[in-house]
Structure formats: structure tokens, C-alpha cells
């Protein structure tokens, strides 16, 4: 089950990287992260009802100077693919995508979703990283946030349930 301790590592990593606005949609394994986003004053947390909204919200907040992230399950990544393509990638908007890897290694839910996830990220030409342990998160978030601005496109960190 997801731990509050690991969620706190993720939240501190986002804070360290200067992330200010986070749109989210829940997954059971993201619950502590999302509760932390809501509780911590450092973040402007915007819970959405479908992930494609989050890409629009992050883009709008970015235009206003905010550093943004979207927290979601990989099913949401698929839901968000059009907005990622026709807005974020088309006009070069930086944002961090934190994606829970349902159907990934060691997880028996949504096997088809798990199989297509990396292929979708590859087709969208979104750089992505998959940490093996929670210890890698902090540096990975920092590097990904710099890269999203440097490459001027979304960058994803895909989280196996085992790191939560």
C-alpha cells in the first residue's frame, strides 16, 4: 500500500523544484500525494474531473508565470493525449507529468493500459523517467523540471506502485 512517508518525499521534491500549481485526479496509490497537495500551503492544488482539463489548467497557469505539474494515473495520460498534443506540444508548454503506472511491473490491474503507456509517451515524444526506488525521486524531479523548460515540452515521471 502507498506510504505517507514516500508521498512526503514526492511533495518535498516538487516543492524543491519550485512547482507551484498542481492539477490532479486521484488514483488509490496517489491518495497521500494528493492529500498533501491539498494540505500544504506551498501548492495551489486544482483537482480536476478529467485529465485533459489539467493540461489546459497547467498551460493557463504557466502563461501566468507559474511552474506547473499534473498528477494522474496513466489512464489519465491517455485521456489527456489530445490536449498534450494540440496545446502543450504544439506551442511548447513546459509542465511536469507525474503518472501512476497502472498495469506496470508487478501490478495486475489494467494490463492493456500498462502495455501501451510507454508506447504512447514515445509516440508523443514526451521524455519520461521511471524511478526504481523512492531515493531517486528528488533528483529526478529536479532534473525533469529543468528539462521541461529546456526542451519546452512536457516531461513525465512514471511511478510504479512500488515506489509509492
Amino acid at each position, binding site marked *: 500500500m502507498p506510504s505517507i512517508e514516500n508521498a512526503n518525499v514526492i511533495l518535498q521534491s516538487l516543492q*524543491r523544484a519550485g512547482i507551484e500549481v498542481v492539477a490532479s485526479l486521484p488514483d488509490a496509490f496517489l491518495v497521500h500525494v494528493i492529500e498533501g497537495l491539498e494540505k500544504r500551503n506551498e501548492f495551489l492544488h*486544482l483537482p480536476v474531473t478529467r485529465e485533459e*482539463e489539467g*493540461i*489546459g489548467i497547467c498551460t*493557463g*497557469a504557466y*502563461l501566468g508565470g507559474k511552474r506547473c505539474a499534473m498528477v494522474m494515473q496513466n489512464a489519465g495520460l491517455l485521456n489527456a493525449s489530445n490536449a498534450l498534443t494540440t496545446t502543450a506540444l504544439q*506551442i511548447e508548454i513546459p509542465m511536469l507529468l507525474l503518472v501512476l503506472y497502472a498495469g506496470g511491473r508487478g501490478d495486475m490491474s489494467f494490463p492493456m493500459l500498462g502495455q501501451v503507456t510507454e508506447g504512447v509517451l514515445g509516440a508523443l515524444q514526451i521524455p519520461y523517467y521511471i524511478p526504481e526506488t523512492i531515493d531517486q525521486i528528488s533528483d529526478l524531479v529536479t532534473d525533469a523540471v529543468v528539462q521541461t523548460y529546456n526542451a519546452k515540452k512536457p516531461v513525465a515521471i512514471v511511478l510504479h506502485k512500488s515506489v509509492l
Partner: protein
Amino acid sequence: MLRSECLESIVDLFDDVPCFVSVSRTWTEWNDLRPSDGNFKVKTLGSGSSLGLGLAMALPHRKIAVLDGDGAVTMNVNGLLTIGRLRPSNLIHLVFDNKMYESSGALPTATTYNADLVGFAAASGIESARRVATVADFRSAVENAFKTDGPHFIVADVVTPGKATSHAYSRMDETEGKFLFIRFLEAIEGRKIYQDAIDVKLSIE
């Protein structure tokens, strides 16, 4: 009433107002009436409300406008649910309801049949949701939206004159449009907004 009449009636209220404008004829009509770097062209159908919400949360002291159509709103009704939950007081969402996908072949949208966008917005928690049928009422509703806390959701019943068209070529490069929009915000805010990768790198210890 015509959408163009509605737009003409409010253009003087929009001096320094950032606007997210749905593609197609709403964009071309508005951009002709109010040529400004503060017009952001929304290409992902329906995402105007989400873009507007994001900017409204980033600049909470400033009114932000969304110029939308019924096809776009029905594509992303989720946006109304989130606006109704977060209730940004500075967001003004204008919807020109011509009951068709005007730029995609003039086929009917759900509002031709039984869908009521005002009812949906109100049921989502957007208290200031209303429908207007005359240009005078539209102007008055928009004036009120600038003077009072929102979020405001104003649906204008409009008809499309003649044959709907789908060409609406625009020479604006959208990536350039993004930079121009950010520079517009910097000018009205009087501060640096754009961060490049070096700014971001140096800001992280």
C-alpha cells in the same frame, strides 16, 4: 442576434483583458474587432475554460475572459464542474450558443436538442450563470461580470448568418502567439513572467 453584434457591443470593455478565444469564426471576428496580443487562440476544442481557469488562479487580482462556443463547451463540460468547485471570482466565461459545430460543417450540437448549458453550469456550482437573448442584455451582463465577483457564465443565444464556413485561415503562428500573450501579460502586470530554463535551473538549489 448575431455573435458579431454581441462582440461589437462589448469590445470597449476589454482594454487590458486577457482573452482565451475558441478557434474558428469566433476567433476571426474577435481578433478583427480587437486586434491584441492579449487574445490567445484556443486550438484544443473545449479547453478554453481550463486555460482560463489556470490563468485566473495564477493572476487572481485580474479579470480573465473566455470566448467560447457551444460545441467547445459540450466537448469539455468537465471544465464547468471544476470551475464550479473552485469558483475563481475573476473568471468570465462567455458562450456563443449557435447550436451547431459551425466550423466543422454546421452539424447540430447537443444544445439543438435537450442540453441546457446554463442549467449545467448552475448545477455545477457556478451561481452566476445566465442566458441572454438580446444585444443590450448581453452587454449589460458582461458589464456586470466585470464589476462583480464571479465566476460568471453568460450564454448568448445567437444565430449564424448565411452559410457556415470552415476555412478561417489565420497566418498567426501559434507558438509566437503564446510568447506575445506572455509579453502582453508582462506589460499589464508590470513584471517579469516568462522563465527560461536557466531561470528555473538557478532557482533550484
